[in-house]
């Protein structure tokens, strides 16, 4: 009895099969193309997920829509245009350059230029403000004397021994 049970259980994997990815098996090439396109598109419901990775129902429907349009022979650009005409530029992860997105695209560079300009201006101003200090003859003589003392190795050794 026990052996029969073991035999039955060992046969179980033969009948088991993966139930998911039903629509993927149909045409792997098309599915790959669909996923590639869906990765560039944003899911409207969970806004920081791509259409490819989202499990929202709407995302599933949109993937179906993309798949069907691909089967109809539409190009990627035509499908993107269709989705943009329905959901706006929001579906694109890569916003197009338009008058309304100029600030988005070029704003950072403008800020960088302004920053660099301010930096150069400030540095120039500072250079003119910090004048070379005037040293009296007495001070420079003392400075030279001190530098002389500390720089000669014998002097340093002598100091070390004293300490």
């Amino acid at each position, binding site marked *: 009895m026990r052996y029969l049970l073991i035999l039955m259980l060992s046969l179980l994997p033969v009948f088991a099969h993966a139930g998911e990815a039903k629509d993927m098996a149909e045409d792997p090439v098309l599915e790959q193309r669909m996923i590639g396109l869906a990765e560039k598109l944003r899911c*409207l419901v969970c806004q920081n997920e791509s259409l490819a990775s989202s499990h929202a129902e*709407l995302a599933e429907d949109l993937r179906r*829509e993309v798949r069907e349009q691909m089967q109809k022979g539409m190009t990627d650009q035509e499908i993107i245009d269709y989705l943009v*005409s*329905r*959901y*706006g530029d*929001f579906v694109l992860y890569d916003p197009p350059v338009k008058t309304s997105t100029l600030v988005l695209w070029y704003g950072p560079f403008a800020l960088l230029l302004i920053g660099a300009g301010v930096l150069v201006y400030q540095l120039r101003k500072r250079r003119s403000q910090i004048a070379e200090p005037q040293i009296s003859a007495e001070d420079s003589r003392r400075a030279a004397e001190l530098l002389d003392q500390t720089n000669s190795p014998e002097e340093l050794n002598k100091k070390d021994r004293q300490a």
Partner: protein
Amino acid sequence: MMRFILPFVVFVVLAVFLFVGLNLNPREVPSPLVGKSAPAFTLPQLHEPAKQFSPADMKGQVWLLNVWASWCVSCKEEHPVLMELSRRNMVPIYGLDYKDKQADAELWLKKGGDPYVLSVADAEGRIGIDYGVYGVPETYVIDKQGVIQYKQIGPVTPQSLTEKILPLVAELQAK
């Protein structure tokens, strides 16, 4: 003096931008369909599936297309507002029953009342995609020429009715 004024001005500009940003709703994606013709469809009516409805039937009238579903939580909040609006008889409301089961939808309308002239069933959500629906409920104001003039994302509230939808409807009806 200048060294205080400039940072202050920058601060104020930033603060204004951030404050406005705080009050924006990122869930509200402006519809590119506003100002465009309402996408055509022909769908079976919810109560009489043998009969069909198409937006083309509404030419010459200002009407509302309300996307709803029995599974939609915010629709519960919106429902009494639509009931009140339909009682006032100011503008016909048509329902697009989005990704719903017929039995559930009919039960919902029986329980809460039916504010719609009629509803059509979009069981697979295909028309929803055509209309750019991404969160139920949504409501479209469509003019006599069949052009979408406004899209309300989320539930219609008494405030949105008095401030936006009804004035717009009156203006469109007068045209």
